């Protein structure tokens, strides 16, 4: 490619209208996610129905968690979310990992480790005698 072929004409090639295509594309993206959203809206009701048929005590899928004050609830959620990210997403997971592997100087770990070594010695003797 080079600079001379810059131009609006590129958007309307022989059999391909880029703007129209983009519009359609956004349509498909919205289509997919809207259907998912609708499905999500209606599923719980279906589940409840089927449960009622089977007289299963209906799980209160509708109500909000706990009975704390609005403020408490929000903080709780934030903590939960933060914790979820913290555990499940690399950038943070690494820190957990790091903790449990990296920081050697923490006295707790060192003592733990030394203990570990002694235990280990015992264990492997078990290993032999088994």
């Amino acid at each position, binding site marked *: 490619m080079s600079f001379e072929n810059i131009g609006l004409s590129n*958007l309307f090639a022989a059999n391909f209208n880029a703007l129209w295509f983009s519009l359609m594309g956004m349509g498909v993206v919205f289509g997919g996610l809207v259907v998912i959203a609708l499905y999500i*809206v209606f599923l719980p009701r279906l589940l409840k129905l089927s449960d009622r048929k089977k007289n299963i005590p209906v799980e209160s899928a509708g109500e909000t968690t706990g009975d704390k004050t609005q403020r408490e609830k929000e903080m709780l959620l934030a903590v939960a979310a933060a914790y979820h990210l913290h555990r499940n997403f690399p950038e943070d997971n690494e820190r957990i990992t790091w903790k449990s592997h990296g920081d050697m100087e923490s006295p707790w770990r060192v003592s733990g480790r030394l203990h570990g070594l002694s235990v280990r010695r015992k264990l492997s003797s078990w290993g032999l005698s088994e």
Partner: protein
Amino acid sequence: MSLADFFQNSGFAALEWGNLVMIAVGVIFIYLAVTRDYEPLLLIPIGFGIIVGNIPPIEGMPLSVYAEGSVFYYLYMGVMKGIYPPLIFLGIGAMTDFSTMLSNPKLILLGAAAQIGVFLTFVGSLFLGFSTPQAGAIGIIGGADGPTAIFLSSMLAPELLGPIAIAAYSYMALVPVIQPPIMYLLTSKKERVIHMAPPRKVSRREKIIFPIVAFLICGLIAPGSMTLLGMLFFGNLLKESTRTERLANTARNGLIDIVTILLGFSVGASTQAQTFLTPQSIFIFVLGAASFIIATSGGILFAKLMNLFLKKKINPLLGAAGVSAVPDSARVVHAVGQKEDPSNFLLMHAMAPNVAGVIGSAIAAGVLWSALGGF
């Protein structure tokens, strides 16, 4: 073998300025990752890969990712054949909790709106004279999703894979820098302090059924997204079924780590100055930046549009989380929200558009691939 031969066989003989520039880039990536903690799991492998890829290989020796039969060539195969990205999606699926999305489906639309960044960038790339497939591959940078970008460019425009991947990951790392100004620009203080109602509890059954139905919907509407979303939702089913936790664990730990190491390193190693430092790459970086800005704006503005019709208003900041970059953009939203009102906790709510954005850009990738792949 004379002294001269030995010098010829050293890297100094063929070293060019471009290589030094790229090596500097690699070092900067590592520096940012170590000191600023920007996406270290990606920038460190990519950064070191860039350094390795810019040591001039000996003429004819199987050393670089482009030299058939070299070890790096085989590792790079996983990128060129598009194998690594779906495996990463498998792990991400096994990490992702779709609860918030399930408990507040309205927010999903924000993830769709943000994909405007993909298509406008596509149009912009065409305008700048890129070929249609190339334009599609560049557009997907706006998806703010590394694996999706790599997958689509390996299929549509392998010759641009290096710059596209680097651009995508660089901007993802810079999300905390790029997004806030736009968020302040497009929202009023009154909007930024809107609180969201806490989401309802989601039953285990809903969580198990979701990945199956969601895959069927996406797969049927855009079969081109089958590879990425099949793996994403497969991983999520492994997680939610609770019967296959050991598989989910391996998918989100050992497997994704191995693939991340190989993908990051070999993508980095593919950025040899000789092929990387071109005017095209500059265009791609400009377009990439644009795509992130457009995507963020798109999400925010659509949220404001929705508010015109909703009695229970959405905090428009959440729109910015539509540009995946999981989970950084969600964190940015939360941080900005708290700066206005410390009692406002948007993090969990922001996860909904965030993961919806992943699905959205995978669908967009499927559409672009099937339409522009020349099938």
